[in-house]
């Protein structure tokens, strides 16, 4: 392999990648110090879409912050919805009915698949393959239709409520979901794996590129597929079971290689696992109410609590501090990509520009979620 020959600082130049660049998926800016095509130093510059969600939370009631959560990670909005709901439910001691938990799991897993599908398409777009994006969108469209049917919106779902969900699901949704599972399973081998996963160009571009060791992950607090791509079997759904996940049978895909290909494979396998989870939930779906009795104005007792969920990109957690008022005293939102991106500076050193962009794509960044 070619080893980068790093030269003296006065021979380098600074390349501003972004805030508007086709590969940064939004308004991320990476200040690259380059030596020819090699990166000497990479410094992500954030904050271009910072909206101060945490202050907004302090200014409204608990329920009023709800519509903000999907706006952070608009690709797996329901995970964020769930994380916030869980924090408030924990603080206020609300029990969620079983059926609501099942519905939450089904929808959140559908959302995870749609997020991974979009990532897959966008990642291939980073690598210069345009067609897979459209194939992924074809399948994703089915999920969006299903979720629109129950939640009423297509992207920034605000579907969960403290103590349940907004609306019950119906037969049309369950049959539609089953059809979708069948359809995606039939499409996965050819359109996804034959076309892309097995492609020699993709393999050559991803294998042994962007190696992230488990130590680096731990140092920077990386979670989600990035961590699992480094061989650590950590998933909040298994390690810190919430909702009905302990009752479900699913695996945590993890690959020890730690390169971009491992992260790619983790996500592809996760789609399959999510399908399994949805299938089990649909089989087990109990009856009953979907919303617990919750006072209209919520006033959790003073104190703080913590809740973490596995979003599509990693651990999303909320630290909620209440002072007995109807507004949160402080809400800290720990978004996964913020930590996942923070290791980029370290791994990008000495990498080719093209590889660095591939690695950045493999981290699956959603900028509004980083900037919050």
């Amino acid at each position, binding site marked *: 392999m070619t080893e980068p020959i790093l030269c003296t600082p006065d021979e380098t130049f600074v390349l501003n990648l972004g805030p508007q660049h086709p*590969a940064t998926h939004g308004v991320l800016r990476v200040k690259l110090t380059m030596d*020819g095509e090699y990166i000497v130093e990479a410094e992500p510059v954030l904050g271009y879409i910072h909206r101060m969600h945490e202050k907004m939370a302090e200014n409204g009631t608990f329920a009023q912050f709800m519509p903000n959560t999907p706006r952070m990670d608009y690709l797996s909005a329901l995970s964020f919805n769930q994380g916030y709901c869980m924090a408030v439910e924990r603080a206020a001691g609300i029990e969620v009915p079983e059926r609501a938990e099942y519905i939450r799991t089904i929808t959140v897993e559908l959302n995870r698949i749609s997020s991974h599908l979009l990532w897959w398409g966008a990642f291939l777009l980073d*690598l*210069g393959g345009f067609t897979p994006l459209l*194939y992924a969108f074809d399948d994703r469209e089915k999920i969006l239709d299903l979720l629109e049917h129950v939640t009423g919106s297509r992207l920034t779902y605000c579907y969960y409520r403290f103590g349940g969900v907004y609306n019950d699901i119906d037969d049309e949704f369950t049959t539609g979901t089953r059809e979708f599972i069948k359809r995606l399973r039939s499409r996965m081998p050819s359109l996804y794996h034959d076309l892309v996963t097995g*492609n020699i*160009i993709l393999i050559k571009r991803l294998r042994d590129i962007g190696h992230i060791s488990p130590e680096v992950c731990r140092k920077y607090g990386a979670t989600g597929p990035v961590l699992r791509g480094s061989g650590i079997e950590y998933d909040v759904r298994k390690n810190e079971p919430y909702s009905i996940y302990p009752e479900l049978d699913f695996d945590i895909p993890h690959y020890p290689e730690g390169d971009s290909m491992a992260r790619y494979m983790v996500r592809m396998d996760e789609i399959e696992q999510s399908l399994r989870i949805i299938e089990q939930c649909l089989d087990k779906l109990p009856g009953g109410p979907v919303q617990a009795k919750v006072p209209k104005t919520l006033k959790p007792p003073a104190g703080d609590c913590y809740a973490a969920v596995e979003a599509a990109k990693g651990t999303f957690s909320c630290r909620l501090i209440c002072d007995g008022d109807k507004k949160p005293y402080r809400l800290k939102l720990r978004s996964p990509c913020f930590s996942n991106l923070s290791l980029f500076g370290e791994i990008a050193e000495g990498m*080719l520009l093209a*590889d660095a962009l*591939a690695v950045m794509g493999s981290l699956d960044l959603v900028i509004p979620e980083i900037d919050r």
Partner: protein
Amino acid sequence: MDTSIWRPILYLIGVMAFAGVNAAWLGWCERKGAGHIQRRIGPKEVGPFGLLQPLADGIKLMTKQLLVPQGVDGILFRVAPVLAMIPAITSMVAIPFSATVHARPIELSVLLIFALASIGMMAILLGGWASNNKYSLISAARSVSQNVAYEIPMLVTVITIVMLSGSMNLEEIALQQQGGFWNWYIFPIAGQSIAQAVIMPISFLIFFTCSVAETNRAPFDMAEAESELVAGHMTEYGSMGFGLFMMGEYLNIVVGACLTAVLFFGGWDSPLPFIPSGVLWFVLKIYLLIFIFIWIRWTYPRTQIYKLLNLSWKILIPFSLAILLLTAVFIKIEGILI
């Protein structure tokens, strides 16, 4: 040879029209092709099937201001797009469309086309350098190394063909392949030894790969590399400057397809002897090849510059040299045997 003044003028008009129409409508073909591969329609609003879309695009590009950013090398910046077009059009002169439709029979037409193709690369180099943009500069550097790497295997495979045909005249090469598809150099069952027939498809693959790389098409679009270099050498270009680059790219594809058709698919020869040969066959072949170009572009992800160079230096060049050697041996053996 007909020395009437009308012949050059007619051919000039003919070649220009062919080049112009192709340069404009291949964009439409590409968009339609991409659309259908991706299960969508592609352009459809302007004219029937969106056929007038290139016209609309052209009008739009022409009415825009040709912006020359501050700090660029003014002359080179303006020359580069023109340089992208000229060699491609000029190459058309040497291409035999059929036994009769031929602008100018040139003895060394193969050499001429390759010489012109190298000038085409200069356009990217100049455009990238003159733009005073870091992305463009990287693109320029990439395109040079890429073109150097891929011209070698391409020329070596062409030498194989030249050895088989004994001529560097494209017309002569095409004439040698007349009389049915088994005479074509892609799969020359007749006329050559069987062993030759086995290695020629590999030779074709090498040549085709190289022509994809030479024309800067995906998956080898290192120079443009949208998701890395924004638009590479075209980043700073707007209006017709950009338009000319695009047209140059499509014309290069046409030239590449023409060359492939002549070298490997018997030029204007019909696949079966009882069907009359003619210019239509040639056009059909080049459009089929262009469709493959489009098909490839919308199937694969982009390679990375070092992988690309590895492919050339470690795989294509050794293989093409081996084929060249084998061909020489086969020809010699045949000579001894007969």
